[in-house]
């Protein structure tokens, strides 16, 4: 159960190696937090112990999770719930940048399969469980890259656009069920996924996204931007003429 001040007892991460998701788990730590499950493709490198050391008393376990095993997602969620009880917060954090996707149709389709199709099938499986327990929050990591796609990463951006449309729509579908969805739209974040890349404007760290996420949970928001000012920035950029938009993307 999430208590009255939005502290969860059980947190599940899909894409358990995500720096942002792990920072969110640390930000959600409290005397109430008991169980963290890290769903990872390769559990050997999940470093559950490393995360556990940053928490005040919760047990962290790694569990094999494959974002592309669409047929297995419902069973995966059921198995986690039968082992650990109600899922209070599920963080959907898996995803790849797919830097070569624009030049490789197969790699692009694979990226869609992970970032978008995986998010849809696992998101629906999670939603089913949350609806059945009458409460819980799905936190989905979207990206401003999907708000308006750019030449430099439009395949990645398109998967996040699809994910974003899916999760915000799922939130509407769950309205009144006790379950909620919160879609998080970070800008550029310094993580292992973006290592070696130059900072874009408004680049933040994983802990900043985590703080914005926890704040959004407290305020029961449907969408969170990180940093918050990106909401205003993209409110304008969305309508910038194409030649201006292309100029900005250098």
């Amino acid at each position, binding site marked *: *159960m999430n208590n*009255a*001040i939005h502290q969860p007892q059980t947190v599940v991460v899909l894409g358990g190696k995500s720096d942002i998701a792990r920072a969110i788990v640390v930000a959600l730590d409290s005397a109430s937090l008991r169980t963290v499950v890290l769903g990872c493709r390769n559990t050997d490198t999940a470093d559950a112990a490393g995360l556990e050391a940053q928490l005040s008393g919760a047990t962290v376990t790694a569990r094999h999770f494959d974002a592309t095993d669409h047929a297995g997602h419902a069973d995966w969620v059921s198995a986690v719930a039968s082992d650990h009880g*109600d899922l209070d917060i599920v963080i959907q954090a898996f995803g790849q940048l797919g830097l070569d996707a624009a030049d490789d149709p197969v790699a692009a389709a694979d990226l869609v399969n992970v970032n978008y199709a995986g998010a849809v099938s696992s998101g629906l499986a999670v939603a089913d469980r949350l609806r059945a327990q*009458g409460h819980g929050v799905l936190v989905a990591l979207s990206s401003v890259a999907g708000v308006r796609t750019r030449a430099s990463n439009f395949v990645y951006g398109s998967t996040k656009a699809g994910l974003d449309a899916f999760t915000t729509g799922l939130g509407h579908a769950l309205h*009144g069920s*006790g379950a909620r969805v919160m879609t998080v739209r970070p800008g550029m974040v310094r993580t292992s996924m973006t290592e070696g890349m130059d900072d874009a404007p408004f680049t933040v760290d994983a802990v900043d996204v985590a703080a914005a996420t926890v704040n959004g949970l407290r305020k*029961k928001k449907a969408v969170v931007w990180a940093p918050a000012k990106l909401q205003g920035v993209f409110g304008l950029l969305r309508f910038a003429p194409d030649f201006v938009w292309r100029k900005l993307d250098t």
Partner: protein
Amino acid sequence: MGHQELLTGWGRTSATSATVESVGADDVAQVASGQRGAIARGLGRAYGDPAQNGGGAVIRVQPSANPVWIDTVESTATVDAGVSFDELLRRIVPHGFFVPVTPGTRFITVGGAIASDVHGKGHHRDLTFGHHVLSLDIVLADGSERTIGPDADADAELYWATIGGMGLTGVITRATFRLLRIETNRCLVETQRLPDLEALIAAMSDGDADHRYSVAWVDLATKGSTVGRSILERGDHATLDDLAEHAPKALRNPLAFAPGSLASVPPVPNVMNRLAVRTFNELWFRKAPKQHIGTPTLTGFFHPLDGVGDWNRFYGTSGFLQYQFVVPFDAIDTLREIVDRVVANGNASVISVLKRFGAESGGFLSFPKPGWTLTFDLAAGVPGLGPFLAELDQLVVNAGGRHYLAKDAHTTPDIIRAGYPRLDAWKAIRRSVDPDGRWASDQARRLDLL
């Protein structure tokens, strides 16, 4: 057929969705509980999550056509569990009776009063509501109905597991309890204004035994030299002679009881900001005379907030918590420390309440025990509440104290276990009558009560 409903407690936090079934007492056993179980809900005045059951069933037990029976010779009442204190008082006060114990609202049900084993301003003398219950009817997990009571031949163990048992032993459908005889619908109340916490502690330690009722309103929102300034109210039910002396006009209709509701609060954003709270407290404190004897109505004395419908909306959509704990009398330093921390933290809301408890009632999970109990409200949307409350929780249990399950909305299984040494014994009794987990609530899951 039931319907899906998003439910919260009075604090309007942690909403979950359940199938709500409104049934008569005879049909409780028929309610399908499924995998997530079922829990009875009265008027939803517990602050946190004990009367909600995400994904499961929530049972509202409807009163029958004749829900209240009064035995005027024995001074007892037999009442359907779904009857509210509001309705009960409207029926019994004109006959010269009052409930043996009432909390600060009359919008609770008899079933809820037993399941939470509620207390009131008279606890130092009258103990809890459960203490006055003579027998109760309960529907058990296997569908059978039993009449149980405090005597050894009436399932006394199950009875004391049910008094304060948060509805987790079964669904209470009817209860017989003692009533209090009263001569008038007024109280004779002595009000005293005290400058700080130490003066209050001294005054309460000294004179409580002389009055049936005693409670202090404390200002925990104002810093400085006036920390703990308070208004101590001590009183008794007014007799006809009292009225002749103090309020002769009230003698015209001394047992009338027909309180109206003033107005309901519309949905508003949180207006309980610090300025509003301090202004309210300043006015509240100033309006009380230094020393005064008055004759408030029963409603004015026992249920002052009931005049404002839906006052919980003042805290906006984020809701609020009511933090209530008790620490033993010898842990007075812990009380002082908590008061200091709450004042320093600056988030306490309007008028907090301090009271001295009398003996335990006997319920395995009943909250009151001898000591000081302090109650204050906090807006739930304030950032950083978690660590602050976790520290208070620890201070309370380290001092041998505990928290009130009917108020709790945030704490942990460890804190509850530390505060209730008979928890395991209670669980064993509970499991003996509900081996398959038919009864469940959000609070029970959150606090590992099952």
